[in-house]
């Protein structure tokens, strides 16, 4: 390792930080100054510049270990923030445990609370505990988006089969416009959430696979009234699912190892789907559940792909290497 290796050494540490760029710059500048001080001292002791930098970097330690330690410092939340992060899941658990979800007032109240906290969090620089709240905020555009798609699909099917539209042409135009707009809005929000840490975006979308499964089950019943009665019968298992999501969120926030955080998310999402499948009688078959589980894993990992794309093209990449070569 030579003096010219110092920028790659610092960038190796940066890759593991997953912090706001300004904070990453600050940490790396501090390390850079330390290495320069040490190298200067070693040069005064008779080492060549390259020898001095090699030794200074070696003494500073392995980049992976340093990066992991910094990651633990900044991504291991205190109990207060952890409790706030788990709160939306626990509220849903209570709502289902007491069968309050059938009352529109409670649903609207929870969605308004999630929206207010998400907007507040967004304006306050997105503290980590607000991410799970944002996940429930995304339910509104996603559900309405799904409904709009079903209206358009039904219209297209009617044209093919009976050569007529069941609703006015204007409705379909509005639906198509809304689909495009809501897709753009969700992608825009999620692409902002993947910076600086895509894992937080994955945490945000964690409840969506189960909610999707729940809606799928709901609308696959004979009618809305029957579906409500059928689902009320398994509210306890839905409450259990949200308790599991809450517990996973607590573990996610309290552990400092990144790989373990990834594992918590990847285990939780398919597990709650299987639990729901076992609890909901007359629901989709094993193949559909397997498909849902696969989609949930893809959904959780999609922020990582989005992040990689952005680091190739966007300002995250910007190769903010720190010049220590003088």
């Amino acid at each position, binding site marked *: 390792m030579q003096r010219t290796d110092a920028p790659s050494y610092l960038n190796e540490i940066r890759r593991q930080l997953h912090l706001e760029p300004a904070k990453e710059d*600050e*940490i790396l*500048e*501090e*390390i850079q*100054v*330390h290495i320069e*001080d*040490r190298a200067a*001292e*070693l040069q*005064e*002791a008779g080492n060549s510049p390259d020898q001095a930098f090699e*030794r200074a970097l070696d*003494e*500073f*330690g*392995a980049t992976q*270990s*340093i990066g992991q*330690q*910094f990651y*633990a*410092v*900044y991504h291991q939340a205190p109990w207060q923030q952890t409790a706030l992060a788990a709160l939306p899941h626990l509220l849903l658990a209570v709502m289902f445990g007491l069968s309050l979800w059938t009352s529109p007032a409670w649903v609207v109240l929870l969605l308004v609370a999630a929206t207010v906290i998400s907007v507040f969090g967004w304006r306050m620089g997105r503290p980590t505990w607000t991410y799970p709240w944002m996940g429930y905020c995304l339910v509104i555009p996603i559900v309405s988006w799904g409904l709009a798609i079903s209206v358009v699909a039904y219209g297209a099917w009617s044209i093919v089969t009976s050569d007529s539209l069941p609703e006015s042409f204007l409705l379909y135009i509005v639906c198509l416009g809304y689909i495009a707009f809501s897709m753009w809005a969700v992608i825009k929000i999620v692409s902002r959430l993947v910076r600086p840490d895509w894992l937080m975006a994955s945490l945000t979308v964690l409840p969506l696979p189960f909610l999707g499964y729940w809606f799928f089950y709901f609308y696959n019943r004979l009618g809305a009234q029957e579906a409500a009665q059928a689902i009320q019968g398994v509210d306890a298992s839905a409450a259990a699912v949200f308790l599991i999501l809450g517990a996973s969120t607590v573990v996610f926030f309290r552990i400092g190892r990144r790989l373990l955080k990834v594992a918590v998310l990847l285990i939780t999402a398919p597990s709650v789907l299987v639990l729901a499948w076992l609890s909901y009688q007359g629901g989709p078959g094993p193949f559909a559940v397997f498909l849902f589980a696969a989609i949930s894993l893809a959904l959780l990992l999609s922020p990582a792909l989005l992040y990689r794309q952005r680091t190739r093209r966007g300002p995250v990449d910007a190769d903010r290497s720190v010049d220590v070569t003088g």
Partner: protein
Amino acid sequence: MSELPPWSQSLLDRYLDVEHNQATPAQTYISTEDVQPPVYSKELLKGSTDTLLLSLLSRERMYGYRLAKEMEGQSGGYLRFKEGTLYPALHRLERDGLVKGVWEVSSSRQRRRYYYITEEGRSKLKSMLEEWRDFSRAVNLVALPDSA
């Protein structure tokens, strides 16, 4: 709380005599790299890191490199951090509100991040030192009854 209490040096000396039967001589920072690294359990230093850092910062503000040097110098070359672990420890103390880091330009016109101990940090250090004193006294009473 301007100096390390005498009991801590005394305990350190006893620890060296018992565990290694050798004392590491005081060295300057540069020359210590040519001697054998001190032998002690990593966990021992890890468990004392916060106390040591807060003790040093309770005397004056310092930047990371100076902290590492002071740590080594004041312990007679015995306590040597793997330098990369120093900064996560400092940032953890800052996250917990025990120290505050401020960028300042030093006399050599170099921008450095100086760490100050906060009031909360002083209070925490006081309780840590009391805990350490009571604990070490109890350990000495059991493990080293002749010298306690």
